[in-house]
């Protein structure tokens, strides 16, 4: 068994002289003072620092959440931008391809029509030449027919007409 060494300023009295369950004495105000002191000490070493820690953590978590939400929004925006750029590039490429096709088409049809015109012109020229030679041939034939027919008449009639 242990014995409590009591502070020497306090006189200790053996055995209760009054005692009892409802013995209200100076214990009560002293206990109240002690309790207030305890509250002040705990306020300094427990409630303030830990409360601050809890609040700071709550702030930190809130800030982090807002920050990450912003980042997600930013990522979504960038993704959207890239998708837009991609689709516009695709559209441009299509435009370029179709333009080139149209140009090629135009060049081809132009060359074709030029060739046709040239062929037409050559054909015309050839036809004109043929006509001219035909006229010339007919003219020569006419002249020969004339002389031949006069010779035939001379031979038949024995004289010359006219």
């Amino acid at each position, binding site marked *: 068994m242990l014995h409590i060494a009591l502070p020497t300023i306090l006189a200790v009295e053996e055995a209760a002289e009054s005692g009892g369950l409802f013995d209200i004495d100076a214990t009560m105000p002293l206990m109240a003072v002690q309790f207030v002191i305890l509250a002040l000490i705990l306020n300094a070493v427990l409630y303030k620092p830990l*409360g601050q820690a809890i609040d700071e953590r709550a702030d930190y978590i809130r800030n982090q959440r807002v920050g990450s939400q912003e980042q997600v929004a930013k990522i979504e925006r960038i993704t959207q931008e890239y998708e837009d750029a991609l689709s516009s590039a695709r559209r441009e490429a299509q435009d370029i391809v179709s333009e080139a096709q149209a140009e090629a088409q135009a060049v081809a049809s132009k060359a074709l029509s030029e060739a046709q015109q040239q062929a037409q012109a050559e054909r015309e020229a050839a036809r004109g030449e043929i006509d001219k030679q035909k006229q010339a041939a007919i003219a020569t034939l006419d002249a020969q027919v004339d002389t031949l027919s006069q010779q035939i008449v001379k031979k038949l009639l024995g004289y010359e007409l006219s």
Partner: protein
Amino acid sequence: MTNFFPLPITNVLAELEVGEHLYWHVGNFKIHGQVFLASWVVMGALVAASILATRNVQRVPSGMQNFMEYALEFIRDLAKTQLGEKEYRNWVPFIGTLFLFIFVSNWGGALIPWKLVELPSGELAAPTNDINTTIALALLTSLAYFYAGLSRKGLGYFADYAQPTPIMVPFKIIEDFTKPLSLSFRLFGNILADELVVAVLVFLVPLFIPVPLMLLGLFTSAIQALIFATLAATYIGEAMEEHGEHE
């Protein structure tokens, strides 16, 4: 009333001493030494645990800090439900200290083998099984809610006694007396009764049988601490509540 039970008590561990005190004299006043010794142990434990918890505060809590943060969150929630989001912060130290002091006192009284320490007179037990302690706490609660009401509304606080009808005035005045009375006697009675029941049972059947009652005693002790703190918060909240045109 030196010995409450006229039974032939022989077993040292089961000996019952009710209403016996270790008297210290401070000036002309007498105080109960065993209550102060026990309360110093309780307060020392609380302060030590707090210092351990806040010695190195981390953002990610661990160990003692985690445990005390759990306790503090519990107290904050309690205060917040009774006092509202706006006001509760100022009252956390008072309500929290009430809860922690009563809780640790009650559990300490039940769990620490005080009997091994022999005093010249009286015996060590939970500080809350002395009527002086509970009255001190209850009167502080009364002061707290008067302070809350008066600092919030000035003398208009007493005008609220006539709300909603003047018939309520005498009842409200009686309430101011019954609140500390019921607070102190509830706590005192529960803790003392629990210790007595366990002591009597240990005296009658020293093995196994008292264990369920001891567990029940732990439960009661925790509940009593919660009730005291919650009621104190409720009284303070009630005193600060706005009546009439504001709501």
